[in-house]
């Protein structure tokens, strides 16, 4: 997140009468200190960060932590999730907090993910699905992902250059999804 940009947009959006205050408020908050969670407890936040990083670890492209996934999940939990969704998320996190998930070895963390993936009881699978949706969204729509793994091209340009049936090899990769 480029903070100056965010603030600029915040200012722009304050000028828009019907813009939900949420957006402006969250943007303003994001422009501040980003190391501490705002909506999750710090114990929940540590589990979130650890699991997101195991799902999408740093490799030749940035990992979940570098891409700001924990911060995104925190804001999404606080401002974009309904009461039921919040409750589900909290329940699954509580199980992981109890076993100090973030202090386990990477191999142990991975084993736990595998066991949840085949656990039909609640929170189990359904929780993992919710968490993955958050983590994937936070990661693959991040600035870090846009500028590392995808072709990031905000203004692709004139139609004569935008051929719609072309070998993948000639496009250089997948365009960052809008």
């Amino acid at each position, binding site marked *: 997140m*480029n903070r100056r940009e965010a603030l600029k947009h915040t200012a722009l959006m304050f000028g828009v009468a019907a813009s939900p*205050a949420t957006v402006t408020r969250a943007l303003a908050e994001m422009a501040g200190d980003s190391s501490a969670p705002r909506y999750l407890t710090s114990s929940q936040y540590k589990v979130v960060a650890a699991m997101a990083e195991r799902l999408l670890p740093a490799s030749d492209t940035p990992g979940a932590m570098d891409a700001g996934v924990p911060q995104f999940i925190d804001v*999404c939990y606080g401002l974009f999730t309904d009461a039921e969704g919040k409750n589900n998320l909290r329940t699954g996190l509580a199980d992981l907090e109890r076993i100090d998930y973030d202090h386990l070895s990477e191999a142990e963390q991975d084993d736990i993910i595998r066991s949840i993936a*085949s656990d039909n009881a609640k929170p189990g699978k359904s929780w993992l699905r919710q968490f993955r949706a958050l983590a994937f969204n936070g990661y693959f729509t991040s600035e870090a992902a*846009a500028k590392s793994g995808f072709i990031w091209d905000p203004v*692709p340009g004139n139609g004569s250059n935008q051929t719609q049936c*072309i070998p993948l090899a000639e496009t250089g990769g997948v365009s960052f999804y809008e």
Partner: protein
Amino acid sequence: MNVSTKGTASHTYDAIVVGSGISGGWAAKELTEKGLNTLVLERGRDVKHGDYPTAMMEKWEFPGRNTISQESRERQAKQSRTGYTTREATAHWFVDDIDNPYSEDKAFDWCRGYHVGGRSLMWGRQSYRLGDLDFEANAKDGFGVDWPLRYAEIKPWYDHAERFAGISGQNEGLYQLPDGDFLPPFEMNCLEKHAKQRIEKKFGDRKLIHARVAHLSQAHLGRGGCHFRNRCSRGCPYGAYFSSNASTLPAAAATGRMTLRPFSIVTELIYDQETSRAKGVRILDAETGEAMEYYAKVVFLCASAIASTSILLNSKSDRFPTGLGNDSGELGHNLMDHHFKVGASGRYDGFEDMYYKGRRPTSTYIPRFRNLGDGLSDQKDYVRGFGYQGGASRTNWTRGVAELARFGADLKADMFAPGGWRMGYGSWGEHLPYHENRMYLNYDKTDKWGMPTVTFDCEFKENERNMRKDMQASAIEMLEAAGLKDVTGFDDPTSAPGLCIHEMGTARMGRDPKTSVLNGHNQVHAVPNVFVTDGSFMTSSSCVNPSLTYMAFTARAADHAVNELNRHNI
């Protein structure tokens, strides 16, 4: 009421246009270009072309990555029913439902925005002509009343509207979907080209064509060509799709004859018993609450179907006790939308090494092929027809969410690569005009201005339900013919009227003042200096997206108004 008339002279114009959306923008352009001093009254805030706060924002700059916040879900509960319109990038273009309430005897989704430009900023830009199949439909099968005109009369105005708006597409020579004056079409991708060939070969009666869209495939009349960003509903800084803000309002302003007054809620027309004409309109200033009057020789109601009909219903006088122009009792009735949320999609194995560039903001279209009046395509259990919008693309990272047991660096790398191809079509079907489908004013429940609110009582019926079965089955059949695998149909029977955002028909035109509100030139039968040119006038709904038709009828009505003024007939 304490009404300020200020200086009457300074409040008098040649013409008043109510609303600045697609139809109001066109009325303003045409009337000013023909020499009339025109006042445009718009209830919402001003939005100048370029004044689009989210247009250049990247996805990661939205705290929820462009999803719907809980606050929007609460304050814009009805606007959020589409599932996409109140995402962070566009929520500011839709009304706050708490400040702008309405009621539902039966579920109805009334999705709208109050600002200069109206829904011309957020619309999907699909632009098709109605043809004689549509204009003759009511007369032939007996639903509704006959349209008071035929295609030949509106054709030149479709030409006129398309030339100015800039519609990309391709002529196909189809009776059911008249050709037009198009900019070059947007290219189809590999799978769409393949499906076109297969479907057209298998079904001689069907065509898969380029969507016709109000997008500039090349620079046009001073507006830039499209840059393939697919961020259109946020507002386009290049003016590369048609909106009032980028197109008609600047043209009207350039004449020096337009006065645009935002924050002006028109509450009623002022009827003059002596002349049998409307003298002007009453407004409430949305910022100060002050009531005011404005006067003109002609009034164009372009506030969108439900809002214009509300203004008419609220304009009561001795002559019109149930609303101006309501001699027929049809005002507020015959409410239509389109029915949709039905279709099919599937997976394609092949073209793995093929892709596309940029983010094309358009799609493909399959025109109507049922009940064409040729005897061959007649259906037993429903009248009228439907078309399809959709296309093909490669799947993205979202495909990985449900693969619960896969994670780690390999999965991540895989999600940066394109997934397999999918193709899908959604169908848009005609909604018949039923007298009992209606909206009416609720004087017991007023809004914060003390104005009556709207109540909807509208539904889909058997004809629509029967049609939906065919809409789904035909989609499955065509995708299978195109070679798709795992084709699955979908049909959301709970989808209520309004969700298609094509609400129309509540002040229909017709030949007979006893059964219609407007004549064939969009004039209120008994008050000919009042023109209604938004969706209210639609006598039937056709199955195509309606806004191009509002543009054409508005331009034709403006031409008629000026001629009638010159002949001193109004």
